């Protein structure tokens, strides 16, 4: 961000201090809600997650951005973003957050291993099992997914449910199918280790980079993590392919972080000016070139770097119609926690699939 911030500092004479923030929506709420509830804000501009943003705008703690962000910035987003912006970045017809990240679960795979065996990465759930078995020889496993509570079990269950064609918050038949598939990967076919149920993303990535995983779903940040591991990374070790298709096709839900301005920002006028500046069509590509976290299918970004790095796969996913909308619930944090709990209970064999679906439906209904 530094080059863009330096430009703004030079233009306005204001100084920007960068502060590292929480890495999840839950932590965003934990860190900022007490301050906002007290009518203060420790920051002027923040990068906010999908699972915290909606609670913040509903509570009236964020500044609407409609009059600050020019229409040409909104027009720079592809058509497929429009609905997501209306659902996740807006409330009561006002926009409160400008997306700066396109977080979709990519399928990373060991192209070197697949090439060696002269096989293609799995294209269907059946192939996930068949190919997974071929690679599994502990400590090497076909696939792996960090599933520790909180939040990570939800991520994977929502991903599989997108592929089975359901809505994970409805605990419908397709959700049951997704839960069953995850269970089978771990317990029936044993191509995913049971230990993933207590893993976080750091551990999952470590396992992959210890050559223990043939293919896995992971967020875009792994692209940089893998390539940043100079001692391990070689071309072909962390390539991206399309996700395997479930009954509803090759899908992966997407969401992401965005910039917003708290209503109680100490320097609100400057904050609003800054957010308009860093998200404009000129600066968005500069941010994207600096870090993969800012790479997204905005027209301005694709025009500059559409043929390089992660952007290539972003386009490939878009062309294959992979992106699926993030499942929405007005009480998103609580609803995600229900999915987390129920998945954890089921995948650790504490309850049956039928009980999991029943419990999930009842707890979601209780949220109102």
């Amino acid at each position, binding site marked *: 961000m530094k080059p863009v911030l330096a430009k703004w500092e030079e233009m306005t004479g204001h100084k920007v201090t960068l502060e590292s923030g929480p890495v999840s929506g*839950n932590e965003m*709420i*934990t860190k900022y*809600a*007490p301050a906002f*509830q007290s009518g203060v804000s420790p920051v002027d501009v923040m990068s906010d997650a999908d699972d915290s943003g*909606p*609670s*913040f705008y*509903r*509570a009236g*703690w964020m500044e609407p951005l409609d009059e600050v962000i020019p229409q040409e910035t909104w027009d720079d987003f592809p058509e497929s973003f429009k609905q997501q912006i209306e659902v996740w970045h807006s409330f009561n017809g006002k926009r409160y957050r400008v997306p700066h990240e396109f977080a979709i679960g990519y399928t990373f795979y060991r192209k070197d291993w697949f090439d060696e065996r002269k096989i293609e990465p799995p294209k269907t759930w059946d192939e996930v099992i068949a190919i997974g078995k071929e690679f599994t020889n*502990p*400590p090497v496993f076909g696939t792996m997914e960090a599933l*520790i*509570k*909180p939040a990570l079990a939800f991520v994977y269950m929502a991903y599989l449910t997108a592929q089975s064609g359901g809505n994970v918050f409805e605990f419908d038949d397709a959700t049951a199918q997704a839960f069953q598939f995850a269970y089978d990967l771990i317990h029936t076919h044993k191509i995913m*280790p*049971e*230990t993933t*149920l*207590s*893993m976080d993303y750091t*551990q999952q990535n470590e*396992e992959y980079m210890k050559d*223990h995983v043939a293919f896995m779903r992971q967020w875009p940040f792994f692209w940089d993590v893998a390539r940043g591991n100079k001692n391990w990374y070689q071309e072909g070790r962390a390539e991206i392919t399309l996700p395997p298709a479930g009954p509803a096709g090759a899908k992966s839900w997407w969401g992401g972080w965005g910039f917003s301005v708290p209503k109680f920002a100490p320097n609100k006028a400057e904050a609003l000016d800054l957010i308009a500046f860093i998200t404009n069509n000129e600066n968005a590509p500069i941010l994207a070139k600096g870090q993969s976290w800012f790479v997204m299918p905005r027209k301005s970004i694709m025009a500059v770097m559409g043929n390089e790095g992660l952007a290539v796969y972003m386009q490939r996913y878009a062309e294959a119609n992979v992106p699926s909308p993030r499942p929405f619930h*007005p*009480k998103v*944090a*609580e609803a995600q*926690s229900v999915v987390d*709990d129920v998945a*954890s*209970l089921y*995948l*650790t064999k*504490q*309850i049956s699939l039928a009980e999991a679906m029943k*419990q999930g439906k009842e707890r979601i209904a*209780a949220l109102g």
Partner: protein
Amino acid sequence: MQRTRRIAILICLLLLPSVALRLFTAVYPFFNTIWLSFHDWNPAFPPQQFVGLKNFQALTRDIAVTGSISFTVLFVTISTLLEIVLGMAIALILHRAFFGRGVVRAINLIPWAIPMVVAAIGFRWMYDTQYGVINDLLYRTIEVKVPWLVDFWGARAAVIATNVWKSTPFVGLVLLAALQGVPQDLYEAGRVDGTNRVSAFFYITLPLIMPQIVTIGLFMVVWQLAAFDLVFAMTGGGPGFATQVLAYRIYQVAFTALNFGYASAISMVLFIVVGIASIIGLLLFRKVEVSL
């Protein structure tokens, strides 16, 4: 008379800051929590509404809460018992004279000095089935690997063991101080009467340090009832609700869901549990004092 009045005013003035602080940081939040527990209050879903006992009715049906209560009771009971037994053993060892005792006493405190979150994350890695050192040792010795943090009882055992590892040195330190207060001439008199080490422990040491054992036991119970950081960093309350404690559930409901009304109702349950534990502890303490 005037001097007495002046002294009384001075006492009040001197006490005022601390009383005001306690009123503001303890009494007000307590009554506000009671008040909120009868309301539906989520800042993301205004307005705040009086709902009577609805939050309390809801928590009786909430399996996350009932599961949390059962593990909280188990966690606190087993942890406290183990900490006192092991802490006593450590105190007895450190009370004896041997070369390097000062260094050993300092080493004993290392686990207590490590921040709980650091210990929790470290143990999470150590318990890992694939590459954790605990399973590695188990496999090398008896060719067994236990999926500690994935298995219902394995995870509970792992969390309790980590907590005991972390807190026992502190209990040992307190009991060591208690042992140092036992007059040596009682042991000498006992030796004259023919007591051995075991009977001296049960008939001299234990009765004399019982008030300190009850005090530290009560302290650990209350402290651990509010434990949150260990579970937060080690298991996230999982698998399922196997290791979820009430304090962690309150955190989830209040600070990730912003459901302050319901979180307040769960807090009242925790308050009642702490209250019952405190009353039992105080009764025990009085009984011990009377018998001494």
